[in-house]
Structure formats: structure tokens, C-alpha cells
């Protein structure tokens, strides 16, 4: 009983904990009560992309796929689409989900490969406006979520302006502070090498002066970028803008990159982080030329810029000519920064473009339709299951129904909480998983109830049957749920597309089911077993003689048969036979010892109980009178059998008139 209370309290704590956490989240404006909905229920577009590689370029590894996701995310964010979700799925796929229908350009942006280039730096300056904006955004980021959302449209505006160059220049001219080509000196001649300042024409210099940075690089800008021409680019994290010479080394010539602790020539660690970079044969020569040239130059032109996807990710300066193709980039890197840069470099060695494997555009109307139908199917399924449970198990069916309600509550909150913490969205397949799991959850109760019934049929009291039935059912439930969970996990890990939502809810509900059976259903049964309505096997309790189907067997020889025929353990066989004999012997009262009086009393008690209809308990009392009911409830099945055996033996020793008594009883 105490344990039942502890378990129920545990469940309450869990419920209040989850509910409270969710309430807190809702009040903070970070969570919502309803689960987040996936695109197929909310409307939107989902694309599954697979990487395109040329023959012999090898496989895309997880890190590179992650980088690709990162790049696609930046591009999509840059177009002002909010709430786009970009994730990897399986080993080879990227899934892009976004509300609405993406336009042509967004689709191209998503599919295009991201090139990496090494270009020499010609000029550097700061974009003051952009830096201010960046600082302002940082402040806002520290603020609440509401403000964060307001920040998004601002960025969008900036992006839109930037996309339309002409308009922007006009606007700038009106303000009168834009630079004109005439303000800059003409180049002195044709450029001799990639670092030659003669690349900077008057127009280019003016453009550079007027250039404003943004996180977005439009499709046109990307198309306009010619590896043999100079280029203006930004580092969106720092707000520096760069005027760069033509490409010295393309990223495809990178062989590998990693990061580690910086080491001096003597092999002593300096405590800083460094990124190590190695080139392939062609890259080695190109980088040797480039580094020799840059090393001889001073100031800004000593630097080279590493560009990924049209943006500068790093602009280190050259300390020495590097001719062996192994470069080390140092700076005040944190471990995180070093890892990030090395991953970007590795990605750059294998630029991946993507093909759309499948694309689904769900209109908001269809999404709504599907959600409504899904919920309707769930309600119908639940009602049918509940009705069947009541039909089969009568009042016990109410236990199933309450358990299902609690399970539903736990699942709902778990999904809402996961939506808050992990951004989990419920899809149509997920709803299907939830509905299917109604049956699987209800089955745990079926396994348990059938076991309890079996134990009752063996002649145990309800309290005893609940305990011993539980001991067996628990094993079975855990073992079979494990199969479900294995399936869900495997399905989740290998699946692509909308399968994942299904596997996820299937696994989630299997776990909740196990928690529930332990913390709710079993303790509830323990409590109910004390109620007279159930313990006495009243009508409609689901445990009455009729409902157990044992009515015939309670009478006459039938009872005899019932005990004898159930062979869960053979030792019970012998016991039951002699037990029956002993029982009758005790009522024959031809013994005058104290024990006999005690037995008599217990027999009376048993008779009394029998009158009240508590057959199982009555039989037990007659068979094993020395043991109190409380002790009995705590005993294991094996212990009880042994006790019955012993009691039977004692009684058999005491009286040889058992057979006659048996016949007497039959006559009655």
C-alpha cells in the first residue's frame, strides 16, 4: 500500500512537474500549450535534398553535410524567410521546410553549391553602418523573444535594399555622401599579379567605398563573381569589407584541414588553437606562389581572404612563404572557432550542390483538413478502444480508460515540451503514430488484467492476484515494449521524410506507456484491490465469478477440478489434492489440540467470507490458516505454494479420514 502511494505520488510529481514547466514556458512566451505543427498540418513546403557529387569525388561525410546545412540556413535566412527549418536526415539527406511557397531564386539558392576561394586582399575597410546594426542586433538578442522577432524584419529590409543595387545607389546619391569614381586615382597600368593594386579601377574603388555589407549574397552577385576578376566581399561577423584580387587558390585544391593546439617550431605548445591546412599537388604550387608573393608585401596586402559562399570567413596574414602545401592558421581562436574554420575548410574542398529529391507543397487548407481528420481519427479510435475495454473488462475497463487519459495528457505535454526545447513539430505521420499507439498502450493493460484473472482463477485473493499477476505481467510488458522501442529507434535513425515523425511518437508513447503502467495502473490496481466492490467480485466489477468464467467451477467437483487442473507449477498439483482433503478434515473436528481450534476458527472465518462471496480468499484461509492475510499478500507464488503444501501435509498427517470427509462434502 505504501508503495502504491509512493508510485502514485511519483506520477503526480511528474504530471505537475511537466504541467508546471509548460505553464512557465507559456507565461514566458517561449512555449505554447498546443504542440507545434509540422508543415503538412500547417501548410508550407518541404524539400528533401540529396548531395550531387561528380564521379570519384568520394562520399559526403556528416561534418560536410552539417556545413551544407549551415550554409543553406544562412542563405535561406538571408532571403527573409522566417522559421525555415533545415536539418539533416539519415546519412545523405537534407530536409528544408519553410512556410509558404519558395520562389525560383530561393530554390536555386538552396540547391547551389558553395565555393571556397583564396583571394589576396587589396584593401580593407569597415562598414560602420553594418557594424552598428550588428551591435544593435546583439543587444536585441539579449532581450526577450518578442524583440527578437521584431529584429528579423529589419534584417529583411536591409537584405531587400542590398539586393537591389541600383535603387540603393540612387538612395545613397540623394543623401549626397556616396563616393564617385572621379574621387579615386586611376590605375597606373595593367595589373601584373593577383595582388597588384592596379586591379582597383576608379569604378571598383567607388563601389567598394559605397558597398554595404549584409548577410545575404544574392544569386546575381554570386553569378557575377568571376575567379579571374577582383571582388568586393564582407565578413558578416565582423563587419569588415574587403576588396580582393582574383582567386589565388580554389577551395577544391584543399586536401584536408583539421585543428589542434598551436605548436612552435620546437614542438612546444603555446596554448592557443590553430587550424592546419594541407593542399593537394596543384594547390601546393599555387599556394607556394601566393604565399611567396604575399609574404613580400606589407600591410593589408600581406593578408589573404578565405571566402566561402561569397563571404569572407577569415583573412589571415602571411608570415612566411609556404612551399610544402601545409599551412597553419593561428590567431586568438577559441577551440570552437578553430573547429568551425577547419570544418569550413574541409567543406570547401568538396563543394556540394544539391538535387531536390522530393518536394511537397501543402496548402494551409489541406494542412488544416489533414489535422482535423487526424484528430477525428484519433477520437474515434480512442472511443472505440474505450468501449471495447468496458465491454471486455467492465469496471476494470475504467482503469484502462483513466490510464489512457493520463497517457494522453503525458504525451501531449511531452510533445509540447519537446516543441519548446527541441523545436519538435507534430506531423500527420506523427499523429498516425499516436493513434496506433492507443492500441499498443491498451495492450499493456490487457496483458496485466489477463494475468490478474489467471491468478484469480488459481484461487488467489484479489490483492494477492494483483501482486503475483503484476510480477509476471511486468516481465512480459517490459520485454515486449523493448521490442517496440527497438523498432522505433531503428526506424527513427534510418528513416527519411515523414517516417521520422511516426517513429518518434511510436517510441515516445512506448516509453510513456511503461512509465504509466508502473506509476499509475499497477498502484491503482493495488488500491482498487482493497475496495470491496472489486475484491468481492461484485457484478460488473470485471472480476465477478461470471466475468471470470469460473461460475461452474465454484460448485461441487468443479472447484476441486479448478485447483487441480491448473498446472502453472507441478508442486501445486499434489498440494491441492491433499489440501482439499485436509480442508474437510478440519471441519470434521476430531482433533482437540489448540491448533484444531484455531483451524476451526479460521474455517468459520472462511465460511463467513464465502457467504460474502470472497471465494478466493476463503479458500486460501481454509487451506493455509496459520498465515495472516497480510503476510500472505506479501508472499511470492513459490512461497505460497510451499505454505499450502506444508499445511496440507500437516493436515494429512493428522487425519486418515480425509477421503470419507471428501465424499461427505460431495453428498452435500
Amino acid at each position: 500500500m505504501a508503495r502504491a502511494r509512493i508510485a502514485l505520488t511519483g506520477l503526480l510529481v511528474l504530471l505537475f512537474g511537466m504541467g508546471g514547466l509548460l505553464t512557465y514556458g507559456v507565461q514566458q512566451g517561449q512555449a505554447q500549450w498546443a504542440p507545434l505543427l509540422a508543415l503538412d498540418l500547417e501548410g508550407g513546403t518541404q524539400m528533401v535534398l540529396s548531395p550531387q557529387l561528380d564521379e570519384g569525388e568520394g562520399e559526403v561525410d556528416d561534418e560536410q553535410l552539417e556545413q551544407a546545412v549551415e550554409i543553406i540556413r544562412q542563405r535561406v535566412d538571408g532571403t527573409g524567410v522566417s522559421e525555415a527549418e533545415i536539418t539533416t536526415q539519415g546519412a545523405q539527406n537534407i530536409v528544408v521546410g519553410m512556410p509558404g511557397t519558395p520562389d525560383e531564386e530561393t530554390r536555386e539558392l538552396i540547391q547551389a553549391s558553395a565555393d571556397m576561394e583564396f583571394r589576396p586582399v587589396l584593401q580593407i575597410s569597415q562598414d560602420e553602418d553594418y557594424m552598428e546594426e550588428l551591435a544593435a542586433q546583439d543587444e536585441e538578442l539579449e532581450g526577450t523573444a518578442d524583440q527578437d522577432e521584431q529584429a528579423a524584419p529589419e534584417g529583411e529590409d536591409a537584405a531587400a535594399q542590398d539586393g537591389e543595387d541600383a535603387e540603393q545607389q540612387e538612395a545613397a546619391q540623394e543623401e549626397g555622401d556616396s563616393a564617385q569614381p572621379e574621387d579615386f586615382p586611376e590605375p597606373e597600368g595593367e595589373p601584373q599579379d593577383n595582388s597588384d593594386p592596379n586591379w582597383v579601377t576608379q569604378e571598383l574603388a567607388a563601389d567598394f567605398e559605397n558597398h554595404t555589407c549584409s548577410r545575404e549574397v544574392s544569386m546575381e552577385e554570386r553569378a557575377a563573381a568571376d575567379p579571374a576578376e577582383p571582388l568586393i566581399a564582407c565578413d558578416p561577423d565582423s563587419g569588415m569589407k574587403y576588396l580582393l584580387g582574383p582567386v589565388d587558390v580554389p577551395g577544391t585544391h584543399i586536401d584536408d584541414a583539421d585543428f589542434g593546439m598551436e605548436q612552435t617550431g620546437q614542438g612546444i605548445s603555446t596554448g592557443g588553437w590553430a587550424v592546419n591546412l594541407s593542399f593537394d599537388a596543384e594547390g601546393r604550387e599555387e599556394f607556394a606562389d601566393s604565399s611567396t608573393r604575399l609574404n613580400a608585401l606589407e600591410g593589408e596586402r600581406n593578408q589573404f581572404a578565405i571566402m566561402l559562399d561569397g563571404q569572407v570567413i577569415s583573412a589571415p596574414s602571411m608570415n612566411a612563404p609556404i612551399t610544402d602545401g601545409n599551412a597553419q592558421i593561428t590567431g586568438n581562436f577559441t577551440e570552437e572557432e578553430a573547429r568551425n574554420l577547419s570544418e569550413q575548410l574541409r567543406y570547401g574542398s568538396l563543394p556540394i550542390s544539391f538535387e531536390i529529391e522530393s518536394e511537397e507543397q501543402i496548402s494551409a487548407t489541406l494542412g488544416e483538413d489533414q489535422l482535423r481528420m487526424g484528430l477525428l481519427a484519433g477520437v474515434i479510435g480512442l472511443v472505440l478502444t474505450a468501449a471495447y475495454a468496458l465491454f471486455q473488462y467492465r469496471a476494470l475497463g475504467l482503469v484502462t480508460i483513466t490510464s489512457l487519459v493520463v497517457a494522453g495528457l503525458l504525451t501531449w505535454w511531452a510533445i509540447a515540451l519537446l516543441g519548446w526545447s527541441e523545436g519538435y513539430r507534430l506531423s500527420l505521420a506523427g499523429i498516425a503514430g499516436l493513434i496506433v499507439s492507443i492500441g499498443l498502450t491498451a495492450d499493456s493493460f490487457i496483458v496485466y488484467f489477463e494475468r490478474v484473472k489467471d491468478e484469480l482463477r488459481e484461487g488467489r485473493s484479489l490483492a494477492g492476484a494483483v501482486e503475483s499477476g503484476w510480477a509476471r505481467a511486468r516481465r512480459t510488458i517490459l520485454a515486449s515494449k523493448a521490442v517496440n522501442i527497438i523498432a522505433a529507434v531503428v526506424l527513427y535513425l534510418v528513416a527519411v521524410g515523414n517516417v521520422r515523425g511516426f517513429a518518434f511518437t511510436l517510441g515516445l508513447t512506448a516509453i510513456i506507456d511503461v512509465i504509466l503502467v508502473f506509476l499509475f495502473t499497477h498502484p491503482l490496481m493495488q488500491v482498487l484491490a482493497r475496495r470491496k466492490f472489486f475484491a468481492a467480485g461484485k457484478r460488473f466489477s470485471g472480476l465477478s465469478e461470471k466475468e471470470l468464467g469460473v461460475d461452474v467451477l465454484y460448485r461441487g467437483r468443479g472447484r476441486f477440478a479448478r485447483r487441480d487442473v491448473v498446472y502453472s507449477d507441478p508442486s501445486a498439483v499434489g498440494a491441492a489434492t491433499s489440501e482439499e482433503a485436509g480442508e474437510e478434515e478440519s471441519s470434521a473436528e476430531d482433533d482437540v489440540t489448540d491448533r484444531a481450534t484455531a483451524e476451526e476458527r479460521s474455517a468459520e472465518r472462511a465460511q463467513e467470507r464465502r457467504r460474502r462471496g470472497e471465494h478466493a480468499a476463503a479458500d486460501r484461509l481454509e487451506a493455509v490458516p496459520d498465515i495472516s492475510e497480510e503476510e500472505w499478500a506479501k508472499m511470492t507464488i513459490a512461497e505460497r505454494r510451499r505454505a499450502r503444501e506444508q499445511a496440507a501435509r500437516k493436515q494429512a498427517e493428522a487425519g486418515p479420514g480425509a477421503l470419507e470427509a471428501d465424499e461427505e462434502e460431495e453428498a452435500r
Partner: protein
Amino acid sequence: MAAGFAKAGNQLYTGERAYPFIQKSKLWFALAGLIVLISVAIPFFRGGFNLGIEFTGGSEFTVSQTEDTDIAIGEDVVSEVTGQEATVTNVAPGTVRVQTEELSDTETLDVAEGLTEGYGVTAEQVSSTFIGPVWGEHVSDQMMLGLVIFIVLVALYMAFYFRTWKMSLAAIAGLGFVVVTTVGVYAATDFEVTPSAIIGFLTILSYALYDTMVVFDKIRENLDPLERQQDQTFTERTNLAVNQTLVRSVNTSVVGILPVGSILFIGSWLLGAGTLRDIALSLFVGIIVGTVATIFVQAPLYALIRRRDFAEHTEEVLALREERFELAGITPVITASGTPLQDGRPVPFPPLPEPEPEEDELEEEDQWQLVIQSSDPAAVPVEAPDADDSGDDSGIGSSRESS
């Protein structure tokens, strides 16, 4: 009816009523073999499966909540824009589905626009899907991978849980039957095979094994004391386990089918083709096949694999049985679950032959037990011959040890 069901449940539990699931295994295997053969043959005769657009590649448009469901409108729109012939179906009330070959982006937009105008709906009500030709293959590849991983994991898990690889083997072999039969049903009925249906297949495996776990767990429980008793044979006790869990099996499949059936109903009649219907359909078929397979294939298969291990015990039991009934002077009918019925009522097995006076036996047992408990090894050979006198003594002894 529930009461009748419950009564049957009780009789199944006691073994009074018994269906010969294990005894008739040859018949079941023959039937199962036939079903497998048919399932394999059907795709050849019918020319394969009705593969969904996910496998063939192409574009699909769904117009929802339209009043006009004339399929000619859709056909016209597609032929105007692309010159292709489109497959237009009215999949559910108010829902029209248009399937075409792969379209370019602009064509997709044009067709969507045309459909919007043609059916007089808003752009919100037209959904489009484009599927590359490798998508379905990709999904099936992943699923095959998942299938292999799942089967290996579960086989290991079951072998570990039941402490015998034979149960694991029987369960997995039975799975083969479930998969082949379900696939056969798909081929025979021309249901569309989509990635969602394939997800369904994997879920079925989990469901079928889940069901098998419960039945096998009961078999394990019933076989645990098998060699400590001389009343029932291996086959009878296994059959008893299947019969004892029969009510549960029926209840479980009903409870499993009800929600799946409601998804199936909603999915196919109200929503038209899609994720819901495809998953529900394969589950619906699979749950039925899975439950049947557990009872008629997996459990008998296990009995077949293990029977030889207990041949000696079976012989002994059967020989003893004759002797016992003769001594007791009764001629009961033994049910398939090993319960003797005399005049339609269950009766206990008569005592074992060469019965010792009960007191003696008890004393002996006690002595024997004492010997086991004492740490003096010299005591054993002295007492052992005595204990060997009665045939069932060692049985009782070991039962004591284990309890």
C-alpha cells in the same frame, strides 16, 4: 457475450477447452507454405505492384475542398500547359488528385495556377508535390537497412531474454511469413505501394514480434517446470500456453485494429490517399497477419525446433500416463493442452504409479533436503540410494532447489 468470452477464457486457461495449435502444426505449416507460395506468385502473374508516384517519380497536385470535382478540368489544364496526359482522380469528396510526369518549376507553377482557375478555388487550396525518380528507391534502401538492423537487434535481444536462440529463430522465421504475406496482400489487392506503406511494413514487424513476445513469454513460463512433472508433455504444455494467451491475443488484435481501422476509414473515405491511409492500410493487414502468425506459425515452429530435446520426457510421460489411468481405473480424454476430461469435466491426474505411503515420502524428502543443505559431502552417497527409490523424487528435489 463478454461473459461467454470470459468463460471460454477460463476453460482455455485450465486446459479444459483446448485448440490443437501445436498438434496440428503440420496442417498450419502446409497452409502457411501455400499462402507464402501464392503471395510470391501473385506479383509475377499480376505484373508487379502498384507503385506510388514516389517510386516512379513525377509531380502530383491536390486540390482540396473544391465543389467541382470534374476530372476533365484537371486533364485539360495539364495538356494545355505541358501536352502530357495526366492521371486525374477524385480521391475523396471534394478532393481531386492530379498526377503527371516530372514537371519543371515553371510548369509546376503554371499547372497549379491553371488548376486554381479551373476548379474555381484559391491558391491556398492547391498543393503540389514533386518527387524525383530516385526518392522512392532511396526510401526503400533506407528501409531495407532498417529492416536488417532491426532483425539483428531483435534476434539478439530475444535470444538474450529467453536464454535460447531457438525461440529467437522461430520468431524471426515467422516474421518472414508475415512480411511475405503482407506483400502478397498488397500485390493481390493492387493497393498502392508508397514509402508510407513501407514504413507500415516495418511497424508491422515490430507489432508482430511484440505479440510473439507475449505468447513466447507464457510458453517460457509453462515450460520452466516441465521436467519436474510427469503429467504433461512438452507439446501439451506449449499448446496450453498458446491457448492461455488466446483471449489476450484476440483482445490485443481487436484493440490494435480499432484505432488503425479508424485511421483507415478517415484516411481513405474522408481524406483520400495519403500518409494516413497508406500507413493504416499496411498496419491493418499486418496486425491480422501478425496475430495469426504468432499462433499458427511461430509457436508451432518453436515446438517443432524444440520437440526433439524433450523426446525422452514425452515418452516417459505418455508411458506413465497409461499406467496411471489404468491403476486409477478411469479412461479420461486428454485435451490438446494436456488436461484429462472425464465425462466432459476436468479431473486431476491420478497419482503416479508405485506410490509410497505419503508420510514416508515426506520424511524422505525432508532428509534429502537436509543433506543438500548440510555442507558435509560424505552424507550424500549414504542417503542418495534411498532417495532414488521413487521415480518422482528427484523431480521434487529439484523443484525445491529452484524455489
